[in-house]
């Protein structure tokens, strides 16, 4: 099913199709809510990931902390942020990496009023 928001550039809307694709990735992320799981994950990330029926691409995205790839593979932003929390990493630094900016560039952009919507409303140019 195509959706009206497919026309919005650089924007991941978490549809049912993404939820299905990312089911086990997101369940893995949710497991990091428990301190004992966070400890087990940090002790041996690969072994912990191998307990989940995730795709290799999903596991690699987690191991490499590639948040754009996690979203691409069906991760929901609020679930993959739990991987950042394990690292003690801020939401802002994740947002920067999703934007392809350094944390410094991104932080400066936000302090200057954020990213303007101009030119970022529509792929088709309708808006």
């Amino acid at each position, binding site marked *: 099913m195509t*959706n*009206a*928001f497919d*026309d*919005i*550039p*650089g*924007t*991941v*809307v*978490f*549809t*049912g199709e993404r*939820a299905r694709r990312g*089911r086990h990735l*997101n*369940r893995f*992320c*949710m497991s*990091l*809510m428990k301190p004992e799981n*966070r400890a087990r994950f940090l002790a041996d990330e690969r072994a912990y990931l191998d307990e989940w029926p995730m795709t290799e691409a999903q596991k690699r995205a987690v191991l490499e902390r590639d948040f*754009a790839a996690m*979203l691409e593979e069906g991760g*929901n*932003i*609020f*679930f993959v*942020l*739990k991987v950042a*929390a*394990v690292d*003690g990493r*801020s*939401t*802002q630094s*994740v*947002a*920067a990496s*999703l*934007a*392809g*900016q350094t944390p410094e560039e*991104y932080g400066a*952009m*936000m*302090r200057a*009023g*954020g*990213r*303007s*919507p101009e030119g*970022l*409303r*529509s792929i088709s140019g309708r*808006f």
Partner: protein
Amino acid sequence: MARITAGVGSSHVPAIGAALDRGRTHQPEWRPIFAGYEWSQRWIAAERPDVIILVYNDHASAFSLDFVPTFAIGCADSFAPADEGWGPRQVPEVIGHPELAWHIAQSVILEEFDLTLMDRMDVDHGLTVPLSLMFGQPTAWPVRVIPLAVNVIQYPAPTANRCYRLGEAIARAVATFPEDLNVQVWGTGGMSHQLAGSRAGLINREFDTLFLDRLSEAPDALRVMPHEEYIREAGSEGMELIMWLTMRGALGPRVRELYRFYHVPASNTAVGHVVLVPEETGERSVTDDAVPRSAAA
């Protein structure tokens, strides 16, 4: 009889909670935000609401994707602050109002709103950060809270219109609760911000201003806006603004804006805040040296 005396809209950025909890409120980055709520802290201290119906969304704290309720009402006696991955916020337990929560649930379900009833639910920054902004750091929250969680993280969220209509139904329910209670409805989330995708960092001050203007004066225009327009203009997470419409719907056709605050940024987000009163009870509600509608920052 219980009555809805005011509505509060507020962003619920987690970094604001962290700044408060770690004593950073006086740092230059955070001071303007906390200053922007000072009027409201004085206002609510004078208003002394008994119950807040607090419309917010869960962020992968109480709900996994195994179970996504569109609207979930908290009927429990109390709600613990959630561990969002770095330990729970050190804020007081949230005390519910189960009698009123059940009364609302019964009333709106019979009006054909399909609520999910929660008797055990941890509450995350979406609920506790607005409490902190409005009440500071008390040892106990000076109010009871009925959490009303709205799904906005799994597409599709309820429509803006549905959120508004739920607010209207809640107002009818509150009006038939026999106890004499001063009830506020809060809508939280937003304002414009985006995390998911390469457009991360989006801020749309023009849209946010329009939203706040229309919230008071022309809410019908916000009710009919489709999800894609909220996302396009306010960002993928800015769509949280639909929750403000439940608050607005509960206030009746005409409202007066007592206070407005807007500031960019808090971490990734534009911070917005309004205090609204139903036009009927507006006079009585002004109990303080109310700042006339003012845009800070």
